[in-house]
């Protein structure tokens, strides 16, 4: 999907939206553990950003800091952050830059500074209803509190975050925080905080293999391994029924006869199933559905 958006941008040569779509692709590549390509894409994004405005360049610089953190290149991340920080405006200080800055301070072990840098902007974000940013910042805040042995505050923050994140089934924001988050989630579970969601999240961490998240070890890609654990758009009862028939040798007209439907209706259901499962064919859909315990 991210590659499609980039391809469309390339076709129209509109630098501002091109840079934005490249940024989305970088996030996807980073989550998939493909840091090499992500760095190369970031270079292209920075070249484009120069043609748009210094603001766009700073957005790309934020991506670069994030990538360097993911790669474990802390000095490079610190240097780039110091370069752009004097230039960021008020809005950026509540947006992407804040997320990168807090992550960087956490990686440096400057936990009190993490809390300080987050305190005021998070109040603003809560008032402004920018929940996506909150859900991405609260795990960092919880981990910083935990690192400072403020265990109760850490669990309160995590609990708040889980309550916000659970209805939409966020996974990545927790996974990318690696082992410290897995441990904190285990503590939360022991205290009965969001047990169902917490268990789902912990199953997404590879605890048996001492998961470190891609912050510590670029070869591990937990987010990509568990990318199929949730369906964005659940299948309807009718689609599930069709899906079960797809797992047989029946052809579309035969399925239509069994279900007393028109073949065109069955084809529509099949198309919707493919879209919802993110697959392109019958065999792939059946495999994905089995992986998700749908059949």
């Amino acid at each position, binding site marked *: *999907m991210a590659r499609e*958006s980039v391809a469309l941008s390339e076709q129209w040569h509109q630098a501002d939206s091109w840079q934005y*779509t490249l940024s989305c692709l970088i996030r996807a590549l980073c989550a998939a553990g493909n840091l090499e390509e992500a760095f190369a894409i970031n270079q292209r994004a920075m070249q484009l950003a120069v043609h748009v405005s210094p603001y766009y360049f700073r957005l790309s610089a934020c991506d670069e800091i994030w990538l360097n953190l993911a790669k474990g290149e802390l000095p490079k991340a610190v240097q780039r952050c110091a370069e752009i920080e004097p230039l960021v405006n008020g809005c950026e200080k509540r*947006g992407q830059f804040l997320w990168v800055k807090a992550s960087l301070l956490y990686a440096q072990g400057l936990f009190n500074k993490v809390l300080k840098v987050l305190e005021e902007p998070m109040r603003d974000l809560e008032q402004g209803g920018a929940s996506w940013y*909150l859900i991405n910042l609260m795990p960092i805040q919880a981990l910083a509190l935990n690192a400072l042995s403020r265990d109760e505050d850490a669990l309160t923050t995590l609990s708040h975050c889980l309550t*916000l994140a659970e209805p939409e089934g*966020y996974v*990545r924001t927790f996974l990318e925080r690696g082992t410290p988050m897995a441990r904190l989630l285990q503590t939360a579970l022991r205290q009965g905080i969001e047990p169902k969601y917490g268990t789902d999240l912990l199953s997404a961490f590879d605890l048996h293999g001492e998961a470190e998240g891609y912050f510590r070890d670029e070869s591990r890609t937990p987010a990509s391994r568990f*990318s199929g654990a949730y369906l964005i758009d659940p299948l309807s009862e009718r689609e599930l029924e069709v899906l079960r028939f797809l797992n047989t040798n029946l052809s579309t007209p035969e399925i239509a006869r069994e279900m007393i439907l028109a073949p065109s209706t069955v084809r529509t259901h099949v198309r919707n199933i493919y879209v919802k499962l993110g697959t392109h064919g019958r065999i792939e859909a059946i495999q994905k559905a089995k992986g998700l315990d749908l059949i």
Partner: protein
Amino acid sequence: MVNIEYSPFKQRLISLLDGIRAYLTWLKGEADQELRFVHRAMDNLPEDDRITHAQLLNGEGLAYKLQLKQPEVIQSFEATLLAGEGMAGLFTAMVNCNLVSAQFLHDRLRQTFSNCQSILRLANETDPGSKDLPFYNHLYATMSLVQLE
């Protein structure tokens, strides 16, 4: 401009120039300044210019998006859709693309993804070629962000 006598034409021109300034400041990420230009442009805009009014409302939504003020963002884009009623379907599609990216930041992942699919489906039904238009790249990018979560 100084030498042009005051007239509805000049008023409209002032408004359009502020609209352009607003867009340029948006590209620089300067939301407060963009809002000042947008609102000044709205004040000077003749009441019958619905097309420019709708575009200015869209600009207002983009500025609020930079400020991460979600209720205002959604309000502006919805007002844009109302003001743009009767305009070409492409304008509506473009504003809808902006609206879904606002829904994403408002933590409405499933709704965002479902709305993205609806917009693409509608585009496909009305004009199969239109889904390759430039503003749909934001739609695909937003869908990729939802999948990433």
